[in-house]
């Protein structure tokens, strides 16, 4: 397993209170390979979201070492971390987190603006995704004019427009009803089959079954790590 895309060695995350140290994550060792579709499961407070935040470099580990494609993230400065971040990751949130003041088109376009993509290229890339998700007619609407499922589709489009190798999704269907949830998960499956590595956090057994690996967390530690087969 020399070429693991993500490799964690003895990662801890803790918060210090006055007289004691509260662990959120404890000695996590973990390898994720390219093309995997990993699901983190566990009860509230088990540390699922923290794992995702650290993995996406939104948060930092308290101890341990983290490699992305053999690059040691823990020793990188902020600038290089941001560079790595731009290169590898796309994010999808439970609450969609679209920018209210921007239209669908502009929301999807925003990550490209931060990557200095030329205007004509941006246009064709956004158009392609709008087409793929069947949202061409809605491109000038604002997020509040869309249903939850549509908003999350925009969220997914925004996450994948930069063609990230790793897609991080924190409860992507948590706010959706089952039919919409199914649609989103189908999209994830498709993306995974196209080669994207997907790492999701969910409570839903149904969603987990779309992936090929389930990691179960209890009190900040890995309790179970098993391969599964695809649902469909």
């Amino acid at each position, binding site marked *: 397993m020399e070429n693991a895309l993500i490799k964690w060695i003895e990662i801890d995350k803790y918060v210090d209170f006055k007289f004691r140290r509260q662990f959120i994550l404890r000695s996590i060792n973990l390898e994720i390979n390219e093309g995997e579709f990993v699901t983190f499961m566990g009860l509230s407070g088990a540390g699922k*979201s923290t794992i995702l*935040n650290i993995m*996406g470099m*939104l*948060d930092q580990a308290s101890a341990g070492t983290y490699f992305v494609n053999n690059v040691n993230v823990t020793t990188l400065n902020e*600038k290089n971390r*941001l560079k790595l*971040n*731009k290169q590898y990751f796309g*994010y999808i*949130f439970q609450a969609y*987190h679209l*920018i*209210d*003041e*921007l239209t669908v088109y*502009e929301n999807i376009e*925003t*990550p490209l*603006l*931060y*990557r200095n993509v030329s205007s004509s290229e941006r246009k064709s890339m956004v158009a392609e995704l709008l087409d793929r998700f069947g949202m061409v007619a809605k491109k000038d609407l604002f997020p509040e004019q869309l249903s939850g499922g549509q908003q999350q589709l925009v969220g997914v489009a*925004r996450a994948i427009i*930069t063609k990230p190798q790793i897609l991080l999704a*924190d409860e992507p269907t948590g706010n959706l009803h089952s039919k919409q949830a199914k649609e989103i998960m189908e999209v994830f499956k498709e993306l995974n089959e196209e080669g994207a590595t997907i790492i999701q956090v969910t409570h839903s057994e149904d969603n987990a079954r779309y992936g090929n690996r389930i990691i179960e967390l209890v009190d900040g530690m890995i309790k179970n790590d098993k391969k599964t087969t695809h649902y469909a």
Partner: protein
Amino acid sequence: MWKNTLKIAYRNLVKQRLYSTINILGLAIGLCATILILLFVKDELSYDKYHEDHDRIYRVSREWLNQDGTSSLHLGHTAPPFAPLLKSDFGEIIEESVRLLNTDVIARFDDKVFPEEKFFFADHEVFKVFSWKMLQGDPNTVLNNPDGLVITESTAKKYFGEMDPMGKQMEIQIGTQRQEMMVRGIIEDVPRNSHFTFDMLASFKPVELFYGGYEPMMQNFGNNAFSTFIKLKKEVTPTQLSDQLPAFMDRHLPANSQGIPASTSTRLHLWPLKDIHLHSNLASEIEPNSNIEYVYIYFAIALFILFIACINFMNLSTAKSANRAMEVGLRKVMGANKGLLIKQFIGESMIMACLALVLAVLFTYLFLEPFSQFTGKEFSLNFVENPQFALYGLGLVLLVGLISGSYPAFFLSGFEPVNVMKGTYKIGSIHEKLRSVLVVFQFAIAISLIACLIIVTNQLEYMKTKDLGYQKDHVVILPAPPALTQTFEMNYNRLIRHPGITDLALASRVPSSRLLDSQGATAELNGEMIPINFRIADVHVSHTFQNTLGIELAAGRDFDIEKASDSLSSFILNENAVRAIGWSSAEEAIQKQFNYGNRQGVIVGVYEDFHFESLHQPIVPIVFMIAQNRFNEVAIRVHPDQFDEAIGYLNTEWLAMNPGTPFQYSMIEDRLLAQYESDEKIQILFGTFSGLAIFISILGLLGMASFTTQQRFREIGIRKILGASVLSIITLLEKEFLKLIFWGLLISLPVVWYGMSAWLDQFSFHIPMSLIPMLIAGVTALIIAMVTISVLSWKAATVNPVESIKTE
């Protein structure tokens, strides 16, 4: 990228209409006030600088010193010999020198007769020193002929209409003398930003004749009525000249009787031309000048208003930032770095500032006219003629945008995305503290301005109502032409017959004028005649002076028309002179020997002190005496009930006595008010701008309070469910703002105390400084703020609690 920023800025603007309006309106008002004031300051600083060689032109002023070296009198005018003497003595330093003599005349052409106040006799070098533009006539020769007259363009229109004035004869009347003069030149109107302007310039030759020729005039060092200007040669420093002036004085003026050289008692000073308008406020000036202090006050107020507006802008932007934390977090997650975000937010604030500028320019055009009238200037904001204005405006906006945008920008861009995503984000306490500090400053400024307004108003009221020691109301002042003075007794009897005229008197100067005349004096003290080593101003009066003006007698008697000696050898002093000389009481001074100038006599009476000059001036020692030929004015006390009849009667009599001379009178009360005009302007200024400051502060407060209530919406709901009353919630919300206003008051206290004490000190008589105006200002601000916040708090407090605790 920029398109994106613009879009977001625009949508934010529209989405949060109230805050955008408050924000932009506040800043626009601040910018408008700043633009107007900067126009004023720019104009004030431009005076006399249009002359080509303005940095080489100096005015010569003359100062007299007491024996102890302190200043006794400093005039902006000098005697006629100085200008030619300076030129001939210092030919290697001075390029040109010129004298100007201002006289009131009556000018006539055909049936057009006007009194002209801006008439000057001038040496022909005047055009070599100054660079006014001659339209017709040769500047080198126009004033060489004794009848040479140069008039300005608008004066030419006034007398000649469409006719060509060149070569036309005008009749100039000075006193009773009439003289024909010929228009030999036409000059452009003197720019308004000059420390003096003229309508007519006449050859200096008639002045020379009046003094009995060149030689006698060159001996006359006593008539200091001439404005003297010199132009130095290039690459000469003024100190090269001023160092030699004491020796120059000793060379031309005799030492006094004790052999003390003239230079110890009288001195010449050089004033750079460009400094006269703002720095020179001597006992005599051609026209009243402005004051650099007022420029500072205006400038400070502009800065304050701009500062308040910027604070608003910053406060509202940071307050709003809480709502945008999520956006910032997202952008960071999507790969925006800090620099990009800072650029975006500063960009947004600059866009807002630009909108404010556009609005401000509109406001400025709206207020340009009233502001011009108020300041007595003509302002224009013409971007075509002055493209640099656009540049200044843009610079100002970029600066304001940068300053106001930078704090929210750095604050916002520092958000950690993970906190935002978790939803645990809360506004930091440092941020809250800074916002509070800004509000405190805002209120400190607003309270200070209100307090200043109250103090200025009180002082003006005090000056207008203070008992001046004589009865200033209903006294008509007319010039005293020879036709009136030469047969005064007869004229007196004729005028006093009218029931509307109570009494009248002649005088060399009447109350409300400056006391500029004085001569040397000796007085009998402890049986010895001692020389008086300070200045005693003199006023020449007729017998009825005391009665006409209602002055109180402190001791002795008034002048008596029955006693012939009173006209030759009697003096009356004021109490101040008695004290200064050293007598222990007014009674003690009576019948003491007193000599003044060449007159020797005794003191027959003492007047109680009264305010001969304005309240800007202290009461000085004065001697009153009867004289025959020194009268300039006649004071007439009229009966208030028969004012119009009396004026009508005076008009008829005046025209009978002085045929062809227009009847123009003034009132002592009006002349006094005119002297307080600049103080009144300061009052209006403080009134307007403290109103503005309060308005902007209230706008800011409104915005801030609405954010606070928004943020505490849930808390209010929970408190209500727990049983809190509406009143207790309003109190809760207001408490923190009241605290801020209180701190604002504390900060303003020392500032106002120090600043206004200095302002009051320029009046010799002023109200005592007290804390009361500041407290009133504080309470005013408090009440206005409370009312503002109450409206919002009431709304928040009366909302159904179920609404507010419902999570999204």
